[in-house]
């Protein structure tokens, strides 16, 4: 008995050893990348949190004094820039959805053999640096240029300046120019997720809706749009988040009256060198965006189920 029982006892440890080594494999795979993110993404946020409650000056150095007043001061001084950022980013996101949806729909259902070409044309602008393309908008919207001329002749500019979007017969250095630039810059981030979710829809569903006497409009409202919701959600997130923190469009196409919160953070950090205020502003921006994203994802998640 003892002889027959012995082999399993000696055999088990090696088997166990192999599985222990195997169990460590995922940790070895994760280790370098996760460590990178911990040190260069999570740790900086902690440093920034601590900087935001410090007091001091560049010469004397900064010390943590739990000075939360900085947050209130920063909000009191820069709330217009916060509101503006959210307003511009929100408007640009809605415009991206309105402009991007038909194009994504076109690529998914109507383009036929032109599909790949149109897709390439959607991605192609990426290949020219976005700063160069944003500068091109300076030429397009230039004072006395064709766009301003046509809009002025049609009295569109009268309406937009009455709304406060433009000033006189100018487009450059107005809120409209900044929103137009934001919309332009983030459109591909809306179109690609929309296209991915539209492309997955089974074409037979459209036929079925038609067979059941649904008009094209009803088919879109009851079948296509609900099924494209995942694309709508990720597209709006991918547009809104970077747009809210962007300062390139506001600086290149806007004026001092169109400054967004990103500009303020950048100048506080790199020019004014008021690190606590800059860190507090950046933390507030992060909190606003994260809260909005969480609420939105919860909301859209439940809508999906209904």
């Amino acid at each position, binding site marked *: 008995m003892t002889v027959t029982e012995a082999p399993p006892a000696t055999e088990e440890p090696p088997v166990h050893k192999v599985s222990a080594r195997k169990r460590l*494999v995922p*940790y070895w*795979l994760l280790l370098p990348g*996760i460590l990178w993110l911990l040190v260069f993404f999570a740790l900086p946020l902690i440093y920034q949190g601590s900087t935001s409650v410090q007091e001091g000056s560049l010469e004397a150095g900064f010390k943590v004094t739990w000075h939360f007043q900085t947050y209130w001061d920063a909000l009191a001084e820069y709330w217009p820039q916060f509101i503006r950022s959210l307003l511009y980013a929100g408007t640009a996101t809605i415009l991206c959805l309105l402009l991007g949806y038909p194009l994504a729909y076109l690529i998914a259902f109507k383009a036929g053999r032109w599909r790949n070409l149109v897709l390439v*044309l959607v991605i*192609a602008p990426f290949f020219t640096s976005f700063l160069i393309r944003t500068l091109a908008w300076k030429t*397009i919207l230039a004072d006395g240029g064709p766009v301003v001329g046509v809009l002025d002749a049609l009295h569109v500019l009268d309406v937009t300046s009455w709304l406060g979007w433009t000033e006189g017969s100018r487009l450059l250095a107005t809120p409209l120019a900044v929103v137009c630039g934001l919309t332009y810059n983030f459109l591909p981030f809306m179109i690609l997720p929309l296209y991915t979710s539209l492309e997955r829809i089974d074409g037979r569903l459209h036929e079925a809706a038609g067979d059941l006497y649904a008009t094209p409009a009803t088919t879109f409202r009851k079948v296509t749009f609900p099924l494209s919701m995942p694309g709508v959600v990720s597209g709006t997130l991918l547009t809104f*988040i970077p747009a809210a*923190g962007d300062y390139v469009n506001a600086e290149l196409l806007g004026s001092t009256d169109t400054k967004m919160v990103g500009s303020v953070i950048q100048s506080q950090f*790199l020019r004014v060198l008021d690190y606590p205020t800059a860190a507090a502003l950046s933390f507030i921006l992060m909190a606003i965006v994260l809260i909005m994203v969480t609420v939105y994802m919860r909301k859209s998640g439940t809508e999906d189920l209904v």
Partner: protein
Amino acid sequence: MAVVKWLRRNLVVIAGLLTLAYMILPNVVVMVFSFNKPNGRFNYAWQQFSTDAWADPCGVADLCGSLALSLQLAAWATLGATILGTMIAFALVRYRFRARGAINSLIFLPMAMPEVVMAASLLTLFLNMGAPLGFWTVLIAHIMFCLSFVVTAVKARVMSMDPRLEEAARDLYAGPVQTFVRVTLPIAAPGIAAGALLAFSLSFDDFIITNFNAGSTVTFPMFVWGSAQRGTPVQINVIGTAMFVIAVLVVLGGQFIASRRKNSASPK
């Protein structure tokens, strides 16, 4: 009436094409203005046709240097982010381990964070550690923000992979290394390539994070930003146009080869 009817039937197509025009218009302007001969320092108004800038694309001080630096930076950032990201993606799809939720959110958060927040906090870290700003700090930052995008791209591909293919390879006496190299890697390759391509374009075109952490190092986007203040040389448009044309040719060429391969592979 016929016109109205036609317009209504093709409304989606017309709206889509208008959006496409909106997206392409700036590229056309960049291209056209690469043949401009501006009067002052800024290349915003059309003066006269000239090919001077095309004849001498590096004629502006520091322009081609910044371009070379950006290409180098993007290459290293792509390599780093692709290796680290692919490893994470495989671990996430193929293995069970603890703290999966925490790791998932650590990967998701950089994508849900305005760039300026990451840029500012990373600068705080570097300043606190006394790290000299320059090539290395920018490279670290680029690998950091490209990583999550690579993970997402590779994960999507590995998830749709049939695990039975690897089981079959093992049943046919392939070792773990052989299975990985001959079966797993080729199937995951399109996902890895997509992730790498994404990382390269994100890194090459990044401005905000670079601007915060570069110190006095000047990448190509930073050069363009600076020139928007000092004066925009026509050469910027030349390089923008050249990049656009090369990339479109590469993509179209790739699709042409892929479609030909598909045609020759499918049975007649």
